[in-house]
């Protein structure tokens, strides 16, 4: 599945979700795998929107979802400023609620639901590859 998200707005994201649903159905993905890809994409797109240089809605993101040799792979490519989510420190989950930072959970959730995250900077783009073994 290849998808280009031209604007980070609800209508575009609904189109992406529909495409992901179709991919999951066509490949008989489990509900858990479909949900993991959905959640990881949601979190990463939120991060791209936050770290992008052109404002929260002006993004062009290329998304490729593949299933190969029992591995679900989600590749996300954007041309925003360099942003490597794999270096983000893990949150301290043992802190009481009063002391927990409000942000910083999205990357932790991506790491939790997917098995691997790989980042590279390539030709002025951020490329994040997320993999889940099925």
């Amino acid at each position, binding site marked *: 599945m290849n998808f280009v998200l031209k604007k980070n707005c609800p209508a575009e994201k609904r189109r992406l979700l529909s495409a992901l649903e179709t991919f999951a159905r066509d490949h008989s993905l489990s509900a858990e795998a479909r949900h993991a890809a959905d*959640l990881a994409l949601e979190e990463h797109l939120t991060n791209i929107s936050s770290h992008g240089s052109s404002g929260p809605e002006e993004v062009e993101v290329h998304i490729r979802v593949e299933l190969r040799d029992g591995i679900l792979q989600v590749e996300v490519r954007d041309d925003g400023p360099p942003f490597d989510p794999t270096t983000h420190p893990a949150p301290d*989950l043992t802190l009481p*609620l009063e002391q927990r930072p409000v942000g910083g959970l999205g990357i*932790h*959730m991506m790491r*939790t639901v997917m098995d691997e995250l790989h980042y590279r900077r390539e030709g002025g783009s951020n490329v994040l590859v997320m993999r889940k073994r099925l």
Partner: protein
Amino acid sequence: MIPINSMEIRKNITNDEHELLVAGRVDGEGANQLELDVLASIRAGARVIYVNLSQANFLCSAGIRVLLQYWRQQKNAQRALLVTRPSPEAAAALSMTGFQDQLVEKI
């Protein structure tokens, strides 16, 4: 049945207890709506806000941020916000972020 890619919130009010019944997808857009509804309850003087997630099939970090932020605000005002009956998807999100034990009402 609501579409898989949208969210609805119904509200039950009993005196100063407000229950928000959240159904569907609490993604970034849904979290914004949830925040507006929680704020409306706070402004209406809710002593306890129950966020019922039994029909929420998706909960991202933006939704958790709203729950945490207003849990704190209510606590500081000697009031409360609690999550009730989280769906398996919502429970998993709360658990993986370490909030299950502290945000969810114990029955």
